């Protein structure tokens, strides 16, 4: 069956290429065709996954790998010799990749079915299908990749898919100039730079911010490749593909990094550096602090596209990558991963609490949840965090996709309105949507019986365990992830409950906005219900009792895997996990109950009594300061815009440009220069300097010109002078 993963990879690409050229001529842009192919891909993924999982612990499918590049080397035995190496493209499917493959294709299928309803009638409808199919191709490539380079290749391609879909409505102006947006925008959206928010801006921002992470990623790749190749060079073995997972882990295990040094670093420190370089890529792609600001802007794309790209799978690719390279992350690197994840989880949760834009709440919630996953992965294998992070990656993909699809239904029903201040009371009008979204909210809250109860609580447990373990070595820093993540979990319960109460129960401010609201098409409703089933805990544990999460099948396959291949000798610390579990579970249930109740009180009960508590908090001084900070997104947008765009980008760019070729005045003078205006050409720039030097060379010529003036007197004086000099010399 080794051809099947390749077929699953190639089919969406073929669809994308076909629809790119012929989509406009097909009925409905070929949506049925694309959906059908994706259904086949999903079926194929199930077969592949069954094959991988049935093989028991640690079974992998290694498809044929193709040699993409062969690079010659120097193996002359000298100390600087590097063996040649190859770079390959191949398939590597372990349980992690197999389950992820099913989730990607399954959700893509769901989103496609749903989009046929959501985007019908849009002028650009055909464009969605080829760009989305292209995205699916790239995403599948990331999942089944057999080496670091291939991951990077498809990593960039998903970035392109995301770029294309964020800019789906590329012709829209910045929202500051968009009367449509201004009429419907959410109140108090003070942190957004409206003059710089449009699909075109957002796609640029997304691509460039991802590239910031990717710069670190490719540096990490290069460091890793160097270490592995040099190690092979020293031991006289052919390097093969130095970036294949197995080759990297083998070399790392054998201390490849101990034999090289750079910048005074070697061994573990250099390995940490390489690991963190690769992690930079994940920070960008998974929108982690400090590179998180592109994701909320990315909501400019079609909501259904965002559902899978900017919520369920693409942004989770960063987490997936961290899970993949986990064996090469040193304890130092893992602590950084966990801390970044925890800071992001809390930061994004605080911002989500004050957002009034429906999709913005979900975007910040996504960032926050991705932070949770990294906390899990950063807690390491021994604390069970590795499994928990991966499990949360899967469960989150389902419920976050569902949340976005429900949001799409709401936005569609309310004619594009997505402000929580205007939309409301939709529960009666959209019962299926309300139900599905309710299930998803319960799932993200971690209510027993729903999926995140299994995964998110395990992350909190793992963070605690890892914190206790690590505090001997790292001191209080090791406890940071556990504390911040727990706080973030509490906030999550509040803002997600707030979202649901506000949308479906609390009355709408503008009743005409919701007058004609209704549930989507039956096919779309079916998608919502199926995904809602995926939010149940039982799906992931196969156990009726929600509290008996030990021995869940998902946990089982991942754990078997993680012990089998990766960190040899690392045992999961079951006692510590058990010890921490009870406390965390009771805490989590308390959070959920309090969050739901608090949100209900503030947004349903009190407004009915005529008390707008949220508004009062916003205006009363001590709390209003907090509100101002959070609603302005911790001022990060302003700071980034000022430091990176204005100063480093435009300011420094302009200074360098003027220092290089000259000021605009000089260039204009050059354009308009005639013989009379030559002086305008010079200036304090490199080019002006060179012109000045060139001009200096004309001075001797001018001096010579004077001698050939054509005036008889000059010549006579010259002749006398020369004769005088000669005669003087002869004396």
């Amino acid at each position, binding site marked *: 069956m080794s051809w099947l993963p390749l077929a699953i990879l190639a089919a969406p690409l073929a669809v994308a290429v076909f629809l790119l050229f012929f989509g406009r001529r097909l009925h409905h842009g070929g949506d049925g065709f694309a959906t059908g192919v994706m259904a086949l891909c999903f079926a194929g993924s199930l077969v592949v996954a069954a094959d991988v999982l049935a093989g028991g612990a640690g079974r992998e499918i290694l498809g044929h790998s193709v040699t*993409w*590049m*062969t*690079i*010659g*080397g*120097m*193996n*002359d035995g*000298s*100390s*600087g*010799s590097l063996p*040649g190496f190859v770079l390959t493209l191949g398939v590597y499917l372990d349980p992690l990749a197999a389950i992820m493959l099913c989730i990607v294709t399954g959700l893509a299928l769901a989103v496609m079915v749903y989009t046929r309803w959501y985007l019908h009638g849009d002028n650009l409808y055909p464009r969605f299908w080829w760009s989305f199919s292209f995205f699916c191709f790239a995403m599948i490539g990331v999942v089944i990749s057999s080496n670091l380079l291939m991951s*990077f*290749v*498809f990593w*960039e*391609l998903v970035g*392109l898919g995301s770029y294309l879909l964020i*800019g789906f409505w*590329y*012709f*829209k*102006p910045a929202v500051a100039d968009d009367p449509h947006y201004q009429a419907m925008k959410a109140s108090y959206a003070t942190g957004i730079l409206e003059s710089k928010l*449009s*699909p*075109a*801006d957002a796609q*640029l921002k997304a691509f*460039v911010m991802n*590239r*910031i992470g990717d*710069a*670190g990623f*490719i*540096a990490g*790749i*290069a*460091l890793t*490749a*160097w270490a592995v190749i*040099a190690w092979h060079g020293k031991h006289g073995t*052919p390097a093969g593909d130095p970036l294949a997972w197995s080759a990297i882990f083998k070399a790392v295990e054998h201390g490849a990094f101990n034999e090289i*040094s*750079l*910048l005074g670093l070697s061994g573990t420190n250099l390995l940490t550096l390489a690991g963190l370089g690769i992690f930079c890529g994940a920070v960008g792609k998974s929108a982690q602090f400090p590179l998180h600001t592109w994701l909320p802007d990315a909501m400019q794309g079609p909501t259904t596209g965002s559902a899978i790209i900017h919520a369920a799978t693409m942004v989770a690719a960063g987490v997936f990558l961290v899970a993949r390279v986990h064996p090469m992350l040193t304890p130092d690197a893992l602590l950084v991963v966990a801390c970044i994840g925890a800071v992001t989880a809390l930061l994004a949760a605080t911002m989500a609490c004050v957002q009034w834009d429906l999709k913005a709440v979900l975007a910040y919630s996504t960032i926050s949840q991705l932070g949770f996953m990294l906390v899990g992965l950063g807690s390491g294998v021994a604390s069970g965090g590795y499994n928990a992070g991966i499990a949360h990656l899967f469960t989150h993909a389902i419920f976050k996709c569902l949340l976005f699809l429900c949001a799409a239904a709401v936005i569609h029903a309310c004619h594009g309105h997505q402000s929580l201040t205007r939309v409301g009371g939709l529960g009666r009008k959209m019962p299926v949507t309300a139900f599905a979204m309710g299930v998803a909210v319960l799932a993200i809250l971690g209510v027993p019986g729903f999926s995140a109860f299994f995964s998110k609580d395990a992350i909190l447990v793992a963070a605690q365990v890892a914190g206790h373990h690590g505090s001997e070595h790292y001191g209080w820093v090791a406890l940071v992830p556990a504390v911040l993540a727990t706080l973030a979990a509490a906030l999550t319960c509040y803002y997600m409950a707030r979202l649901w109460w506000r949308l479906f129960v609390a009355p709408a401010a503008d009743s005409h906005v919701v007058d004609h609201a209704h549930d989507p098409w039956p096919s779309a409703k079916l998608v919502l219900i199926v995904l809602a089933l995926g939010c149940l805990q039982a799906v992931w544990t196969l156990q009726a009792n929600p509290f008996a999460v030990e021995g869940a099948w998902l946990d089982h396959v991942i754990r078997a895997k993680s012990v089998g291949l990766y960190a040899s000798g690392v045992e999961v610390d079951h006692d510590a996990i058990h010890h921490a579990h009870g406390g965390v579970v009771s805490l989590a249930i308390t959070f959920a109950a309090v969050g739901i109740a608090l949100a209900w009180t503030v947004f349903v009960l009190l407004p009915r009594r005529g008390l707008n508590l949220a508004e009062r908090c916003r205006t009363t001084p001590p709390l209003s300061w907090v509100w101002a900070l959070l609603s302005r997104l911790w001022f990060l947008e302003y700071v980034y815009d000022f430091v990176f765009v204005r100063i480093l980008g*435009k300011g420094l*760019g302009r200074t*360098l*440009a003027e220092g*290089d*070729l000259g000021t*605009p005045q000089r260039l204009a003078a*050059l*354009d308009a*220069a005639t013989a009379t205006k030559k002086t305008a*050409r010079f200036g304090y720039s*490199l080019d002006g300097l060179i012109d000045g030097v*060139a001009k200096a060379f004309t001075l001797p010529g001018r001096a010579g010109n004077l001698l050939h003036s054509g005036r008889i007197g000059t010549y006579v004086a010259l002749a006398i002078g020369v004769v005088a000099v000669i005669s003087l010399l002869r004396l």
Partner: protein
Amino acid sequence: MLTTSAALPVWFVLLPLLGAGLIVLAPAMRVRVTALGVALATALVAGLAAVLAGIHGGHAMQFETNIPLIPAWGFSFHLGVDGLSAAMLALCGVIEVIAVLSSWKVDKRPRAYFALLMLLFAGTNAVFVSLDLLLFYVGWELMLIPMYILIAVWGGDQRRYAAVKYVLFTLVGSLAMLFALILLPASVPEEGVLVEVDPDRVMTEAHIGPTSLEWYPPSAFSHPVVGNGLLWVKNKTGFPSMNLKRNDLPVDIYGLPLLIERNRSFTPVQVVHLKLEELKFRGRKKFGDHPPSMSQFAGDSKNDNLDLKASKFFVLVPRDLNIQHLQLLWPHWAKTTFLGVSVAVLGFWCFLLAFAVKVPVIGLHTWLPHAHVQAPTAISVVLAALLLKLGVYGFLRIAWPVFPTAALDAGPLIAVLGTVAILYAAWVALMQNDLKRLVAYSSVSHMGFCLLGLAAVNVAGATGAVVQMVTHGLGSAMLFLVVGVIYERAHHRRVDGFGGLAKPMPVFAGIALFACLASAALPGLAGFPGELLVFLGAVSSTAANGKVQILGLVSCLGVIITAAYLLWMVKRVFFGPIRHPEQAAWPDLTRREYACLVPLVLLTLAVGVWPQPLIDSITPAAETLVRHLHWVAATR
């Protein structure tokens, strides 16, 4: 080897030259068609030569033509193609056709225009295939003058200024090259110099033939000879020979008879058994295996006394202008001085200056934005896609191999210049409002990768540098054509004078985005393999105690700025609402514009998805260069 194919490089140079004459004679209506025909014929020759050279293995010179012209100077009409030039040949073929196509609308004196264009091609082509230093110089100068006239006559408003600037910059470099051209033969004694040759080079590049051996005592040489004298491995049947048989030995290298230092226990009568398949060259196809070690060459007979592993190879290099001979003379350059300065250093810096202006290396680059802005579209295409490559090609063909010691010493500096170019030029490009100037700075930035790859002194880096040359040729040509398409409609190139062009011109916007993504090294498109190899090469470099490695890591930041300036430009020009109502009615691409852009799009995709054929062609040449440098570093 086919004798007819030996004529390929000759035709590659002569066709455009003859074409120029043909255009002068052609009827006025047929000028463009003639030019296109000549360009197509040249492209065919180039493609054939590139493919055949690639198939034969690019480590050694193929299709050599060597006709002595002025024997007293050692000047000959000496052309040849190896893997390095093969890649450039392919690029020339494509770009020259596209340059003619994109000049179709030149109405001002078309006959003169196309004739000059052909002369320009002749000069460029000559540089890429010449193996004689003087011929190289002639080609170098030959392309200068047509380029000057093409910019000065057919350019924009400020064309004279730009053209004079271009010529002055290039002339300063040319003058330095001319000086070195005179200096080098002048510092070789008339009877030639006896130098040691890298045994590896002998194994990979020497001709092999049935031999007899003659012993020459030290007294036979006017040079000091190591050991007990030298063995002249003589060819029995004439020299050089390509007939490969058993019991053969390396006979000559680059047309120079090989001498082997006499091993004490050696008796000339004994027959040496050699495994020819192994000796011939390290099969690039079998690359995964270890290259056969020298001990395997020593033969399978136990009585064999000629231990090649312990032998040293020498050649007597005459005073001539053969570039390959000059490479062998590196120990001599290091020992000889001119006015107290080592010829190695002096020669290296002269050539470096000449080539650095063309690359252009940062600091010597300010002619480029002017020339690009003023030149017509097709000339910009040729300038960016071919002429800039001549600089790096000069590094790879002359500056590095002929003066390896000086080049190794200058390595860190070159790496710094490359890294600075990558970041600085990208940063400058960020704030350019003129589209052509923006693309011009992107060229400077991308050529920085070539310098960095070269300074890494490993195969990945050197291969990456050459791949980057080819892919930048494709990418920059596309970008300039894209600007040309806009310019033809708007008659200006100000970024702020456009907006929302994707609406009236969706296909064009797609291709422009494609070109920018290729330039920003999106995987799957041509820009990626080159940059990747340069990063891998630089970071794994052992040159200069890890300095190059750090610069490699720093240069990774370039991917951010590159994406920023290109995609920001795309955003401002193509996306957002239409800002100038008259642009809403612009037609999408015309057929001629399709004909220019689509081949480049396909090639970009092909190289990006499957770079192996290109790399296969380049790697042997890169290996030869890097092996040379390593050997020099080890023996200097």
